[in-house]
């Protein structure tokens, strides 16, 4: 059962912005509803107005141009999982999407909703940060681009302005010989630990330092310092151990139903190594 509210269907970005401005604190943006309807059912939030952004054409579509994969904010996980352009451009992202939540949440839940909600136990944020993805935000003041790492600043906290709408997500497509991977561990509905990695392995060595980002354990995704991997041999066990150590040191795990802090820290080390192994296997 939901308490009474009024649903407003915005058909353009400008209309959504105007609705946010006019309805102020009484309104929330609504996309797939997989998170916001839950907060309303549980009585955590009460919104007399919901602004449906799904009818806005700019929030849809998946396109590739200029080395960039552009995804409309209202595109559902279901579509990302199946889209041939995503699978071609960034196969690891298609694979990540295939393993988000369950089939029904994927059918309804959107990528924009995932980022805007900033629930820490999420898969896409760590991966998008590892690939230096950006979000496009529009509000009364105009349109701005922001790194995903500058959008998500805390648990359920973002820098999205009071009248702003998340319009799209832009992911730079990795260079031809670069690879990406995402590995996760989960015992409940959402990930306990996720590790994203992106980088290049050529002739058995890391070329440049790979980007490694740990998601789900801490309040926000954390970048792991990886400079030591630049030039290291791909099969160097000591380098992998050093990465695990660096990853454990980069996070301050939040204890919850998925596990105690020290247990999660241990998992971070294990999964950082698995992410590294997955990247090396991809590059082979």
């Amino acid at each position, binding site marked *: 059962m939901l308490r009474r509210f009024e649903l407003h269907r915005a058909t353009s970005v400008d209309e959504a912005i105007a609705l946010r401005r006019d309805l102020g604190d009484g309104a929330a943006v609504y996309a797939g*509803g997989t998170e916001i309807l839950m907060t309303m059912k549980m009585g955590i939030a009460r919104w007399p107005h919901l602004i449906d952004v799904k009818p806005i054409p700019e929030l849809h579509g998946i396109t590739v141009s200029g080395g960039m994969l552009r995804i409309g904010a209202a595109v559902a996980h279901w579509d990302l999982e199946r889209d041939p352009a995503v699978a071609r451009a960034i196969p690891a992202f298609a694979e990540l999407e295939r393993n988000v939540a369950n089939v*029904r949440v994927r*059918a309804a839940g959107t990528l924009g909703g995932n980022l805007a909600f900033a629930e820490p136990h999420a898969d896409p944020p760590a991966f998008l940060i590892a690939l230096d993805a950006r979000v496009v935000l529009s509000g009364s003041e105009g349109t701005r681009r922001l790194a995903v790492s500058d959008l998500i600043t805390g648990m359920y906290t973002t820098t999205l302005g009071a009248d702003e709408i998340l319009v799209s997500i832009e992911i730079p497509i990795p260079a031809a010989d670069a690879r990406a991977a995402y590995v996760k561990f989960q015992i409940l509905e959402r990930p306990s630990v996720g590790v994203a990695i992106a980088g290049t392995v050529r002739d058995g060595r890391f070329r440049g330092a790979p980007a490694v980002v740990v998601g789900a354990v801490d309040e926000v995704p954390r970048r792991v310092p990886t400079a030591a991997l630049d030039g290291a041999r791909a099969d160097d066990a000591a380098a992998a151990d050093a990465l695990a150590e660096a990853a454990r040191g980069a996070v301050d795990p939040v204890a919850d139903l998925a596990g105690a802090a020290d247990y999660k820290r241990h998992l971070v080390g294990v999964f950082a190594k698995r992410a590294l192994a997955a990247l090396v296997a991809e590059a082979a």
Partner: protein
Amino acid sequence: MPQRTMAVALNGSKREVAVADHTLLSEMIRGLGLLGTKVSCDMQVCGACTVLLDGRPVSSCTTLAIEAEGRSVDTIEGLADGPRLHPLQTAFLEKAAFQCGFCTPGMIMAAKALLAERPSPDEAAVKHWMDGNICRCTGYETIVEAVLDAARATRP
């Protein structure tokens, strides 16, 4: 209560249904007397409430009814053709893939969406697709077998 009247293709027949903005799809469906759709966890975890919205499986417990405007909604009641059961229903019966039966309508609707997209799934594909449908009774083995049986029975 503000009501909207919307057109829905419910189990293949066009209908006009009155809903409020905050009406949930499960409430609309059950309110129309279609009680096969169950609500259990009420939080998108168990799948007992699974129905198909334009062919996609959704949790009707956490979907606004208004989302169905101008679209198709398929529930377990629409599966059998008169007395002729759907191959999934037959397979669930033959494999005894349920005990209390509370999860079954959701299981079958989820499986229907799978077979529509992948007529010949392997066991891993069935398990991946169905991992958000929870059964308290059976232990899943017979459910997976029933879906694979139905896939074989439907193939030309």
